[in-house]
């Protein structure tokens, strides 16, 4: 799996795919695209990196526990829904918008970003789980 060609291509592709994933995430605002697709594209980049690199290096690169990234994404999504309740009369998940310099920003974007993080975190958890050696099972109770 770990050939020279794959390693060198990944070096270039990794950044490119990540940029593309963010573009897809933001494009989802008004056109087809969005957090889930963007997250999937980003997790392709991460999976490529996991294939060629040592899992330890990947963990060092992403800095946080991927599971925590997913949890943070989930809390962002919930938070974006709560903003709908807190700011004036709406119900859970009703959209709120602000306009900064002609660009409309709103809670749906926050929600999408949360979904993005969840997908990246979850996929990375699974991929790392497969690549890393199995943890030693607890000694007691296994016959």
């Amino acid at each position, binding site marked *: 799996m770990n050939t020279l060609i794959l390693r060198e291509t990944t070096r270039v592709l990794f950044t490119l795919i990540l940029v593309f994933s963010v573009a897809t995430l933001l494009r989802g605002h008004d056109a087809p695209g969005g957090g889930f697709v963007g997250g999937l594209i980003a997790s392709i980049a991460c999976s490529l990196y996991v294939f060629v690199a040592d899992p330890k290096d990947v963990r060092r690169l992403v800095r946080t*526990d991927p*599971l*925590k990234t*997913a*949890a*943070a994404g*989930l*809390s962002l999504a*919930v938070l974006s829904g709560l903003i709908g309740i807190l700011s004036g009369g*709406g*119900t*859970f*998940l*009703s959209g709120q918008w602000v306009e900064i310099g002609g660009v409309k920003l709103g809670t749906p974007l926050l929600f999408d970003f949360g979904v993005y993080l969840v997908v990246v975190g979850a996929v990375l958890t699974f991929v790392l789980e497969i690549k890393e050696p*199995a*943890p030693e*099972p*607890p000694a007691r*109770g*296994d016959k």
Partner: protein
Amino acid sequence: MSWLLAAAIVLPLACGILGLLLRPHRAMQQAVSLVAGIAHLGIATSLLVTVWREGILVVQVGGWPAPFGITLVADHLSAAMVLITSVMGAATIVYALCDIDERALVKDFHPPLQALIGAVCGAFLTGDIFNLYVWFEVMLIASLALLISGGRKAQLDGAVRYAALSLVATTLFLSGIGLLYGMTGTLNMADLHLRVQQVENQGLLSVVAILFIVAFGIKAAVFPLFFWLPASYHTPKVAVSAIFAGLLTKVGVYSMIRVFTLIFTHDVGYTHGILLWTAGLTMVTGVLGAASHNELRRILSFHIISQIGYMVLGLALFTPLALVGAVFYILHHIIVKANLFFVAGAAERLSGSSDLKTLGGVYREQPLLAALFFVPAFSLAGFPPLSGFWAKLLVIKASVESQQYWIAAVALAVGLLTMYSMTKIWVNGIWKARPASAEKPPPLSRANRALLLGPIICLAAMTLAIGLWPGPLYDLAERAGHEVMDPSNYVEAVLGRSETAALGAGAGVGE
């Protein structure tokens, strides 16, 4: 008060996320889980009180009106199920403080447990059939995470079987939803109640009904579809087994009750006839399986199956009294069954074995535990004056009233066999002296003993209370049973009065 509905689902899910973020701080995770469990108990209690006083509560999520958006509905059945879920959740969290104390296990226990509680409540409260499917899947992932935590061989083996059959079930469920949507053009269960009456092809409706029987049947572990349950429920930690045993199969039974009173009532003789046979065979095979085993938790797993038969029987008879019996049975059974698993775990911790051959001396060494085993065990068997007696009485009375004498006879015989099985545990595990070869485990500290026995005492007290004063629970079950038998109130609460009248008349249903 409608925020209570959303809170009952969102609070556990949010605390599950918080628990993930707090990894790996053991004490903080436990504290969050404990606070969440107690708060959920408060929410669920006030939800039931509100429904009791004001009738069915409805929330349209996101402000979208009923047949288009997702609706959350709390009628008496749903509210009672949410309350019992949160009682189980709180008991499990307290029990797990002692049962699951290794650092490596704690960090993987509380987040999925909270997600499981949230998903189960979601399944009970939703009024949208596709949303029910989504909660089933969330429940499945959370329960799988709990099931494999620890990674022992038996756990992985059990988890493969559990995951395989559960996924087949949810796929069949999804296919059923697809076909139902194709026929009616709606997913809202109250709307479906009205639309299925206008479907021309009643035969296809029966086919879809069978898909739902199989899908929920796998979830509820009824007769030919139960093999995943005894293969997996005895493998994880006791706290996990207990909440699975109490809640998961009952979500299947609840969904069956919901769907087969609200949607598929076009050909009761056919669909509910199948359910009646299933119920009888489930009772018998479950209790026979239990009689043939010697490991405590495996015996109890088979008893879950046989008891599911009684609940399905209540639905299959399809009379008001039978449904009252089914609801009463579910509520009593959840308390008793989870408690039995707790007792089995405590016996294992305090006397060092869970196999009847090597277990013993519990009565002499742990008289309190022996007494605590007595209450749920003989309630399960239907001893008067414990709660199981009233539950069985209701179901059997209903079957005699509908002149299904053979099924009443089966139910009575299975009750006797259950008693045999419980006596076997009592004689071999509790009463007999400790075998000479068995080693005594190190004694537990006073605090740990209290954490193990506390939930058991509370649940046993509830069983006793229901047995001695069945009135309040009977009233609740009566309201819930009559409500599901006559869905007009439910439909009206969800869709609003004018909509119901227009659709009910069958006139002017334009797409």
